[in-house]
C-alpha cells in the first residue's frame, strides 16, 4: 500500500515535469518564431548621410564673388574670412540660409518619419563657424558623417547627424 502510494506520487511528479517541459518548449518556439520574423525596416544608413554631406557641399549657391557662383564648400571658406557676395549679402548669412533650407528639404522630421531630428555643425579649427542647426529630437540613436577640409592651414569640420 505504502509502495503503491509512493509510485503514484512519483508518477504525478513525472507528469508535472513533462508538462513543464512542453510549456517551456512551446514558449521557446513562439519566441523564436517572433524573433526571426521581426524584420527591421530602418532604411537610414550613415552611407546616405555621407552622400548627403557630399552633395550639400557641391551645391551651387546664388552668391557670386565676381568670378563665379560659389558652392557651399567655397561659401564655407568665404564665410571664414568673412567676405560678401557681389550683391552685398554676407557670405555667412547665405551659407546659413542654404544649409537650413537644404537640410529641411532633405530630412523629413515630421511624425511618422524614420528621422526624428538632425544636427549640422561647421567648425573652423575647433571653433563654431556658424550657429549649428538643431532640428527635432536628439535621440541616442543616430547616423552621422563628417567631412574634414583643410585650406590655407585652417581645418574645417562639417558634421551631420540624423537621429532616429
Amino acid at each position, binding site marked *: 500500500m505504502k*509502495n503503491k502510494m*509512493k*509510485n503514484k506520487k*512519483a508518477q504525478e511528479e*513525472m507528469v508535472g*515535469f513533462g508538462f513543464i*517541459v512542453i510549456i*517551456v*518548449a512551446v514558449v*521557446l518556439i513562439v519566441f*523564436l518564431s517572433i*524573433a*526571426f520574423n521581426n*524584420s*527591421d525596416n530602418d*532604411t537610414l*544608413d550613415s*552611407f*546616405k548621410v555621407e*552622400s*548627403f554631406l*557630399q*552633395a*550639400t557641399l*557641391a*551645391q*551651387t549657391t546664388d552668391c557670386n564673388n565676381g568670378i*563665379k*557662383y560659389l*558652392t557651399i564648400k567655397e561659401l564655407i571658406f568665404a564665410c571664414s574670412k568673412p567676405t560678401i557676395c557681389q550683391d552685398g549679402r554676407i557670405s555667412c548669412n547665405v551659407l546659413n540660409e*542654404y544649409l537650413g*533650407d*537644404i537640410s529641411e*528639404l*532633405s530630412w523629413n522630421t515630421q511624425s511618422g518619419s524614420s528621422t526624428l531630428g538632425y544636427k549640422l555643425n561647421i567648425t573652423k579649427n575647433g571653433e563654431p563657424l556658424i550657429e549649428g542647426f538643431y532640428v527635432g529630437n536628439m535621440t541616442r540613436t543616430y547616423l552621422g558623417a563628417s567631412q574634414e577640409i583643410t585650406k590655407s592651414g585652417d581645418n574645417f569640420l562639417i558634421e551631420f547627424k540624423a537621429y532616429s
Partner: protein
Amino acid sequence: MVILKKIFPQYRQAQLKIQQMAFVLLAITLFFVLAGMFALMFLTSGLKNSATALEEKNALLIVTKLANSPEFSCGGAYGSDRVNCVDADKVMVLSQKMDIYSEFWGLKDIEVRKVYPEESLVICTFSNYPNCNSIKIKSSTDNNISGKYLENFVTLCKKKQENGVVYDNCDIAKLLVSYNEK
C-alpha cells in the same frame, strides 16, 4: 520478475531510483539543449542584424554604382572627378534612349529628383528642360515612383550660361530606383 521482487523487496525501490535518475538526466539534457538554443538564437540574431545592415548597404551601393556609372556620372566635365555626381544633360538624353537600356540595370524605375530649390514637381521633357526638377530615366508607370524603392543623395550638375559665360551649376538631388521584388 515477480519472483525477483518477492525475493528482493528493495529491487522495486532500485528500479524507481533508476527511473528517477533517467528523468533527471533527461531534464539536464533538455536544459542544456534549451540553453544552447537560446545562445544560438542570440548569435544568429546578431548575424541577422549584420546581414540586414549589409543588405541595406549593398542596396544603397547599387544606387551609388548607378550614379557613378559612365552613363550617369559627371566624369571630368565639372572640374575634378566628383563622387555621386550625375550629369543632367547625359541622363536627359539617356531617358530618351531607354528602350535600348531597359534591361541593362535590372531595375524597374530610375528617377533623379531635385531636392533643392523646392519647387512643385515638374517632369522633364525636351520641351521644358532645364526648367523642371524630375528626370524619369526609366519609368514603368506615368505616376511617381512608389512601392519598394531606394534612394540616395547625389549631385545633379549641368552647364549653364549667363552673359555669355558658361559655368557649372550643381544641385542636391535624390537618385531613386525601384526594383521588382522577388
